[in-house]
């Protein structure tokens, strides 16, 4: 070391220059930075959450009392369908993978971006376009109105000649492209871009959850895509798949849909598991109990989830042997969840937990998940399912699990990573108040639904008569819904206000153990000035390693200062064996997404030749995009 290395500031400035993106709106349109794309996903899916929430509130207002006519049956059915479709496809999944996964996975891996940054941008623009596409239907008075699982024959042209089911089917095919792209990106990133030393057994549990979710997304989306393609071919081109007279079967739709649908619910909840397993060690200030079992459980739940789909079809009259098989599988799929629940609980019990807001949300998540999980198990008792299916008991089950178990960790995660993303602290007092409001609102909204269901209240009714004993419970649910909304608005207000006025947070306000806390808040475009070296499962608590990383920065090692670069590593041991040239910002993803939207719109309006031509143009745009090599 005779030559004096340039000072740290100079190195950092160099990286800043290399990784700088365009400012302004144009910058957002062409960005390939996973953090900015993650934020785009976040705000867009939040907007869809608000839309789905408003739909839910109209539904609840209509159902507050018997024989109400705030909206007519057509409007109600559209709102009900759009609520379910929005929440599942345009809110939780893009929120879990697109926002949280996108933003955090590279940071936790010690990487500078996702494996395919431009594909990531394309994924976002497709997501946005597909959401707008589906909502166009609602706004032009042709909203999907056949329920979120769109059973045939009701969704066939014969019974629904409007464009509603076409908006739904084409929109979801379109949307699936986005999820597929994100999933490929996340899996590849987790395989190839881990920091040196982060062998698979040191992979953070959050990333295991993301890996399981993204991996299952690649397998579960094809059945849905095929189902929707078959539906469109039958509706638009006169093919026969679902009509009995021509040799088709309406059961085909159901099998394909639930072959997608059940794994999808684990896709929804897995990112929430990941958030939980991030928050708990931080606030319990100790490592996870039974961490390998938890990682295994996360992978296993995604896997077993593919073998239980027919529990959504218990009353269709399948043969007894099939019923029993799927019931047994449903009992089995419970085990990974119980393992995780107890691992979380005992981690909290072993440590000295600090009950700050994120941990409160996680505690509520545990309670709600157990309630929803227990009612889920009851459905595996076939005769009970055959009694309660399609009643509000089912609505209670899945809202406890989806809202209580998937959304609560997301809310907790918003608080937990807020300092990282914004560099500022949220207001703890208001955050706790909003937690209790949301918590009690949720319980009041969804718990009485169990009872309404046991009293026979069917789901998807736009109104109900007086005298069946349902009135009081429905009123309570509606009141709860508004309390819950107040809690959510308070959360939003707190975060917006704290973004503007919050106290500076510093890089690691909670002493989190994962690598995202090892960089500044908010992280620079290249995430880490020096690619960290990992020597334990909790690198954020490994002060020695952190110190050494700082030393390496001083000596100029591992900063990859010649272009958009970062190491690529072996899959198992994360031994760096190549240097990846990452692409920089590009306008092509937006262009391709626009062309694809046009193609879907033309298909919707049955201009098939024109749609084919536009698809060709999209292919040309993709070729142009791929032509320029990242290193050039």
């Amino acid at each position, binding site marked *: 070391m005779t030559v004096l290395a340039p000072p740290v500031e100079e190195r950092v400035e160099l990286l800043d220059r290399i990784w700088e993106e365009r400012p302004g709106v144009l910058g957002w349109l062409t960005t390939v930075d996973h953090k900015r794309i993650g934020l785009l996903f976040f705000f867009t899916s939040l907007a869809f959450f608000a839309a789905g929430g408003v739909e839910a509130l109209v539904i609840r207002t209509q159902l507050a009392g018997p024989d109400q006519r705030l909206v007519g049956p057509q409007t109600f059915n559209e709102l009900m369908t759009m609520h379910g479709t929005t929440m599942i496809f345009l809110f939780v999944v893009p929120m879990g993978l697109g926002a949280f996964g996108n933003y955090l996975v590279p940071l936790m891996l010690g990487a500078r971006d996702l494996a395919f940054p431009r594909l990531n941008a394309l994924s976002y623009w497709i997501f946005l376009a597909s959401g707008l596409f589906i909502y166009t239907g609602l706004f032009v008075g042709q909203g999907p109105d056949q329920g979120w699982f769109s059973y045939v024959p009701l969704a066939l042209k014969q019974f629904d000649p409007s464009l509603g089911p076409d908006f739904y089917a084409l929109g979801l095919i379109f949307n699936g492209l986005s999820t597929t792209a994100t999933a490929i990106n996340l899996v590849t990133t987790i395989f*190839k871009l881990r920091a040196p030393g982060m062998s698979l057994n040191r992979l953070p549990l959050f990333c295991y959850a993301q890996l399981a979710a993204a991996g299952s997304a690649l397998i579960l*989306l094809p059945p849905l895509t095929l189902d929707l393609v078959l539906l469109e071919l039958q509706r638009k081109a006169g093919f026969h798949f679902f009509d009995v007279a021509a040799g088709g079967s309406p059961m085909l739709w159901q099998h394909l849909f639930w072959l997608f649908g059940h794994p999808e619910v684990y896709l929804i909840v897995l990112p929430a598991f990941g958030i939980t397993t991030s928050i708990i060690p931080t606030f319990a200030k100790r490592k996870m109990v039974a961490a390998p079992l938890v990682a295994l459980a996360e992978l296993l739940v995604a896997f077993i989830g593919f073998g239980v789909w027919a529990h959504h079809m218990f009353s269709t009259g399948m043969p007894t042997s099939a019923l029993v098989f799927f019931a047994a599988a449903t009992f089995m799929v419970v085990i990974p969840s119980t393992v995780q629940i107890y691992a979380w609980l005992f981690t909290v019990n072993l440590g000295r937990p600090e009950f700050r807001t994120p941990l409160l949300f996680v505690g509520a998540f545990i309670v709600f998940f157990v309630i929803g999980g227990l009612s889920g198990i009851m459905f595996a008792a076939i005769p009970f399912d055959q009694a309660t299916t399609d009643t509000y008991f089912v609505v209670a089950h899945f809202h406890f699990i989806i809202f209580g178990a998937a959304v609560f960790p997301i809310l907790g995660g918003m608080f937990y990573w807020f300092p990282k993303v914004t560099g500022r602290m949220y207001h703890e007092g208001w955050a706790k108040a909003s937690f209790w409001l949301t918590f009690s609102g949720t319980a009041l909204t969804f718990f009485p639904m169990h009872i309404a269901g046991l009293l026979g209240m069917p789901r998807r009714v736009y109104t109900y008569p007086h005298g069946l004993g349902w009135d009081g419970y429905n009123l309570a649910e509606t009141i709860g819904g508004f309390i819950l909304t107040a809690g959510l608005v308070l959360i939003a207000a707190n975060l917006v206000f704290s973004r503007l006025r919050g106290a500076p947070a510093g890089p690691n306000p909670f002493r989190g153990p994962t690598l995202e806390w090892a960089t500044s808040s908010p992280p620079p475009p290249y995430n880490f000035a020096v690619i960290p070296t990992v020597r334990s499962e909790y690198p954020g608590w490994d002060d020695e390693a952190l110190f050494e990383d700082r030393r390496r920065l001083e000596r100029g090692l591992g900063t990859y200062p010649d272009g958009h670069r970062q190491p690529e590593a072996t899959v198992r041991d994360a031994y760096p*064996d190549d240097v990846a040239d990452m692409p920089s910002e590009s306008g092509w993803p937006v262009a391709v997404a626009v062309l694809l939207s046009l193609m879907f719109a033309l298909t919707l309006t049955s201009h098939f030749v024109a749609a084919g031509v536009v698809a060709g143009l999209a292919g040309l745009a993709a*070729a142009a995009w791929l032509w320029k090599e990242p290193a050039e």
Partner: protein
Amino acid sequence: MNVFAVPARRSRARGWWGMALFAATEATLFGTIFGTYVYLRFKAVHWPPDGIASPSITIPLVLTGVLLATSAPMQLASAAARSGRARRAQALLLLALVVQAGYFAMQLQRYADDVQAHPPQLSAYTSITQLMVGADHFHVFVGLLLNLFLLAKLMDGRVTAYRRTGVQAAALYWHVVNALTVVVVLLQLSPSL
């Protein structure tokens, strides 16, 4: 300790993994198509329904064999790219492309005739069969474009890391498509076998 030394033999690049995952979801898509075919078949009393002749066997099997054979030049091209021999990779790609294009042209012709004779609007049998075969041909078509793109990229006779990964990924794509084609053809011909 210098953990950043780059060893001579690298593990699979991220581009290859991207293609592998993409191929996995495409294969799943075909898997569900096959499942649908089988499901509809076992619901039906007559398969194909009365009045539709069972498919003929010889030509499809021969064509499939030809397509399958192109896996060899693709794999060799991949190896050539890995060792940096651009011209050799290009020649092999071209060879594969010519055969694949010939295959595609013949299949397209046959497909058009078959759709004329047995339009998918006829019954569930024609619907699923034509969909399955059409989807397969479409994947061959995409593979042709992929090879064309790589040929163009290799024009200047250099193999960059990007192109190397591209050729490897394309080879993988073709292996998967060829394997799927075998299943497609066997299912398509199953009523006559």
